[in-house]
Structure formats: C-alpha cells, structure tokens
C-alpha cells in the first residue's frame, strides 16, 4: 500500500484471501485492493494462468480510475503447479501497456529456501524504478527497503543534509511521479535486513552506489557504519564526524542511565518482532545495568552472531525462548504476576504484561545512535503507561499495520 497510485490484486484460494482482504479493510484501503478466487476446478483443469489473466483484466477494466501500477500477487499454488508466470505478465502487459505490472509473491511455502516472500516483495516494490542517465542526481540519496520512514531525529536524517544530500523515502511519496523520482538517486541506502536483497539488486541494475547500514544497538558497529557513510559521501567542507559521534554516544548514555533509574531492576522481556536485532538490544541493556531476563526468538540472524556469542559467554542465565514451539501455545500468562517490561508485542503476549513497547520491525528507529536514545525513551514511556494488549495486538492492519501477527 506504500506505492502511490498503485492497486493490488491477489490471486489465491479462500483461506489465504480472507486474511489479506480483511487486513486491507482494517487499513481502510479496500478501494486499492481486489482479488481473484482460485477454486478446485482451476487446479484440476490446469487453467490457473487463464484465470489469473482474465480475472486481473476484468478487475482492471472495472476500476473507476486506471492505476499507474498493479501489484499482482501470485501464491504458493501458482509456483507449485508450475504456472507460466511469464505468460501471465506478458499478456497483461500487452493488454494494458499503460500500466506497470509488479511481480509480487505471497508464497510462504518458500520462506525457508532462497529469498523469502518478504525479500521478494521488497525487491518487486522498486522494480519499476528507472532513471535517464542525465536525471541521476549524485546529491540525492534514496533510503529504501523498510516499511517505515526513518524518524526525523535519526542520525541519517541529520547527517545526510549536513553533508549536502537530499533524502528521499518511499513513505513520503504522494504520487507515482514522486515514487519514480526515487530512482534518480545517486546512492541507494538500506537499513532494514529484509530490504537488502532487493535494494542491492536495484542499485546494481541502475549502476548506482549501494550502502547497507543495518540498524544496530552496538556503538562500535554504528560508528563504523557512519564512518563508511561519511567517507562515501565525501562532504564538501571536510566536516569531522568523530566529535559528532561522541556527542551522540553521550546522549545515548544519558538516556539509558535515565531509563535505568526509572525502570530499576524490573524484569525485561524482548521479542524479535520489535527489532531485527533483539540480541543486540539485550546485550546493550545488560551492559547498562538492566535486568533482561528473556528474549523470544525463533532463529538467530547472522548479523547477531557476535551478540549471541557474547551473551552465551557473559550472560548464560539469559533465557532464549522459541515462539513457535508447540508448548508455547500454553506457556503464556494472561496476567503477569509481577511488573514486567515487554519490548515488543510477542513479549507482551507471552508474559501477560500490560507494560510494553508497541512497535514492530524497528519502525523508524533505524537511524544509528538516535535509535538507541529513542528506544530508551520508548521503554520509559511503556514502563509508565499501561496498555491493553488485547485491543492492540489483535488488530493486524490497524494504524498502518503495527501488529506483529
């Protein structure tokens, strides 16, 4: 739904469709969403290509306004049945030459092999970006790959203008033309792990500079990332970065200390939906005197290898709990016995805490040291303000998809 003037069409069976259509409704985006239902006969007769082409074409013809782009989502059954996707897109592009068709996939069966559906979607979202060589602006940076715009206070939004660069993000595009202008950037920057695959390919395709500066909770890693950025950008007046970094670190330290004084020894539980670096966050908090007891996660990202090794050695008492293990269906509390600060919705569900940071995917916190400072602030807010998890967690698409479900 982030791409302006685009319309989504899903082609799948009832069971998959129900969730998608109702999520679109929760987002009040029904008018940007249509679908084609696959039935048994389509699988048995082998006419899934025809159904997809004719259904999509029928829906497009009935739209009140011709969209600039169609995000056409095919699903597991298309791939499993060996559907000729190229034929589908070719015929649709011939019928509607004025529309850009983006190849999108909702095939969770592929989530453990090769690029995940999430990675492929983040690639597809930028496939129509292009740029005339003379329109390429070396002083423009497009920050892409995440569902969220960076906070205004983020390091990147402070550093890039300082170095004389204009920042563009998908979230601020209001028209298809603005979206297309994202492609004019001389540099594509990605902070979100699932976006890296697609944005790197985009940079390669358009022959642009690519920077991957993953969000982190480690001072040294952020420092290195920002030095790489600074050296790549080559700011005109040779401003020094180090004093700026030192100032930012001292702000982080002050924020963390303030939060620690407020929260004290209250147990903390973190989950992986809050941020792609839950172990990094646990390490940061433990090294600053917080009482992190549990991290809920189902796998450990290669980017967290060092944090994991450190925690294993220095904090062996830290519990790592799976969220998908069968027993976890019952191992959750309705109400926490003692006050627990939960960071993330799944941590709130499992601990039964009403004090939780209600954020997914790191949201706009992906901007270096400022992300640490803001996390400390959010923890303090969550600790002081009771929330009702029952009304917040279950609403998948409300408030711009802030649920982890």
């Amino acid at each position, binding site marked *: 739904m982030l791409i302006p003037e685009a319309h989504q069409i899903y082609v*799948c*069976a*009832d*069971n*998959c*469709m*129900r*969730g998608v*259509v*109702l*999520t679109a*409704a929760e987002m009040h985006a*029904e008018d940007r969403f*249509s*679908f*084609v*239902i*696959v*039935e*048994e006969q389509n*699988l048995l007769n082998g006419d899934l290509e025809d*159904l997809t082409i*004719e*259904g999509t074409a*029928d*829906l497009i013809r*009935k*739209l009140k306004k011709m969209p600039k782009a169609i995000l056409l989502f095919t*699903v*597991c*059954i298309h*791939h*499993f*049945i060996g559907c000729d996707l190229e034929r589908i897109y070719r015929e649709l592009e011939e019928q509607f030459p004025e529309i850009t068709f983006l190849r999108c996939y*909702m*095939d*969770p*069966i*592929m*989530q*453990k*092999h090769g690029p995940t*559906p999430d990675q492929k979607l983040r690639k597809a979202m930028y496939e129509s970006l292009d740029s005339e060589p003379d329109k390429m602006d070396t002083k423009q940076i497009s920050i892409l790959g995440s569902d969220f715009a960076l906070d205004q206070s983020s390091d990147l939004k402070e550093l890039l203008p300082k170095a004389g660069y204009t920042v563009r993000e998908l979230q601020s595009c209001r028209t298809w033309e603005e979206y297309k202008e994202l492609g004019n950037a001389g540099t594509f920057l990605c902070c979100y792990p699932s976006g890296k695959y697609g944005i790197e390919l985009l940079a390669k395709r358009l022959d642009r500079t690519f920077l991957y500066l993953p969000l982190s909770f480690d001072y040294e890693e952020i420092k290195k990332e920002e030095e790489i950025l600074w050296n790549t950008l080559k700011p005109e007046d040779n401003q020094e970065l180090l004093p700026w970094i030192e100032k930012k670190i001292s702000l982080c330290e002050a924020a963390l200390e303030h939060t620690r004084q407020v929260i004290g020894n209250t147990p903390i539980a973190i989950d992986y939906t809050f941020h792609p670096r839950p172990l990094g966050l646990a390490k940061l908090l433990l090294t600053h005197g917080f009482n992190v007891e549990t991290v809920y996660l189902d796998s450990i990202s290669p980017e967290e290898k060092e944090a994991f090794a450190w925690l294993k050695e220095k904090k062996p008492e830290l519990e790592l709990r799976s969220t*998908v293990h*069968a*027993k976890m*269906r*019952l191992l959750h509390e*309705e109400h926490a016995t003692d006050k627990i600060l939960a960071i993330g919705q799944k941590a709130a569900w499992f601990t039964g805490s009403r004090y939780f940071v209600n954020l997914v995917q790191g949201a706009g916190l992906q901007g270096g040291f400022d992300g640490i400072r803001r996390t400390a602030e959010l923890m303090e807010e969550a600790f002081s303000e009771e929330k009702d998890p*029952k009304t917040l967690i*279950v609403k*998948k698409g409300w408030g711009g998809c802030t*649920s982890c*479900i």
Partner: protein
Amino acid sequence: MRQAYRIIPIYTSDVSGVCSALYELGGMVVIHDPSGCNSTYNTHDEIRWYNQDSLIFISGLTEIDAVMGGNDEKFLSDIKEAAGELHPKFIALVSSPIPFMNGTDFPALAKVLETETGIPAFAVPTNGMHDYVYGAGKALEEIARRFVPEQMEDRNGSERTVNLLGATPLDFGPISKVEELKKNLEQYEWKVISTWAMEDSLEDLAQAGKAEMNLVISSVGLRAAKMLKEKYGTPYVIGTPYKEYAERISEALEKRIQIPAIEDRRRENLQGTGNSEKIITLIGEPVTIGSLAAIIERRYHYKTRILCPLENAEGLLGEHDLKICGEEEMENA
C-alpha cells in the same frame, strides 16, 4: 467474471471452520500448511484466544516437503511429540491447498497417529477452497461419528430436551449470544443437553444421544444433525431461536416442523399485507438469516429475499431466495 471480487470480502474458509468448531473440545488441530495463509484464522477468525487456550497448530510445510510428497514422517513425528507433551483428547488433521494438490493421504496419517499414540485421530477433508460451513460442518459431523456413543442407556424419557447444533463464533460472535439463544428456548421449557460447540466439553457433546430433539441453529450443524439422526433416529429442526422467534421454534420442535422459517415466509409472502411492496434483501448464512427474515415478515410484514453466497444451502432457502456464486452474480441480483 464470477471469481473476481472488488467490493465484497469473502467468507472464511473450511480450514478456519474446522478450527472454530473444534476450538473448545480439548483436542489438537493440526493444519498442514506453510503457515502464512492460515494465520488468517489467528488474526481474523478467532475471538477466544485471550479467554481460553486451544491446541491449534500449523505444520510449517516447506517447498521441499511439498515437492518430496509432504515429508509425512516429519509431519507425524512433530504431531506425536507435541501430543505426547500436551495430551489432547483427539487429533484432527486439516488439509490446505498444497497437500490437496500433492494428494497427501490424511485418513491414513490419522490412522497411523491413532495407532501409535492411542489418541483418537481423524482427518477433515478440507483444502482451503470451501467455505467455513463446509469445514465446521464436517468437523462436527466427525465428532458426532466418533465421540457420541452408539448406545445411550438412559436416552428414553428425556422429554423437551434438545441439542443446539452449529454454534461457532463465526456465526454468533461471543458466547453471550449463544447463551441468549439457550435462554430463549429454556423460556419455553426446553432443556439444552449440549451446544455444538461453544462452552461445552467433548464429554458434554458425547451426551447428545440423550436429547429428544436436535435444533440446527446454523447450517454448520446440519451434518452433525444428520449423523445423530442416523445413530439415534433423533429428529431435527432447522432454525435459530432468536428472542422474537423462540416461541415458533419451540412449536416447531414440538410439532417437528423441519424448517419453520421457510414455511412462515411462504405464508407471509403470499399474504402481501402491510408494507409488503418493499422487499428487504438479506445476505448471509441461510439458517440464521432465514430465521431473521421470518421475524421480519411475521412482525413487520415486509417481503424478504435472501442472497446466500455459501456452498451448502440446498434445501435451506425459500422459493424467492437465491444462491449466489460470486460478486458479479450478487450485483446482478
């Protein structure tokens, strides 16, 4: 095009129907699926997560498992391990589109599970391409087949006793709504033996053979009613005992009028009195909406017409009603 939709969301599928029907019965439901699509059940089709636990799982089927024929051993081993720890009263296997396509033999897998774990196991033949009425209906039919004993020692003499068949939040929302229906019937001195399947346990449902009558309160309960009729000869009536309709349902139970709403609406439509020039169209599940239509006709004398987008509506609709297939047909109707 019949299968293309722009306006109306779709009903939930057979898979969610099974989960919803079996949610409170203490069993373990395993959906053989990659997991993404069936998160639908978690996010949009189940309202009881916060008040009541249930053992509903997804197998996490992967591409390799699907290509290699489902990797049945892994599927079975995961279920056995979980069942060994969680001790469910039964295991229900639920299929989704990919296992449907590769022909996974669920009845055989259920048999293996039952033999190896000693826990009753059965498969519900879903594929994610039918509606919830089909899935929930098949699940309750299976409960009637497997868990209601063939013989009931004290089943005679239970006059004015009834089972309510077809209660799920998908049709009725929270339990308070079903309790209202029960109270409405109790006002006319009917005693409810069991409610299939909200707020009653598997053991309560096993007592269903003791009832004099069965009342199908939504089409979800129809298959179970037929199964109980086959087992015990228990007659059934189809209708929802809303407050304004409970007296008529009570009468139908006494006189064994199978679908009172159709009879009432036929009579009212023919009368054509009062406001009958105006036609009110109701869209939805045929039993609940049929009872509502009958109330509207009897009390307010409006003509009604039902558009039913669900699959198994045969015999449940009146002569002016339409079974609708797709949004385009709905628009034309």
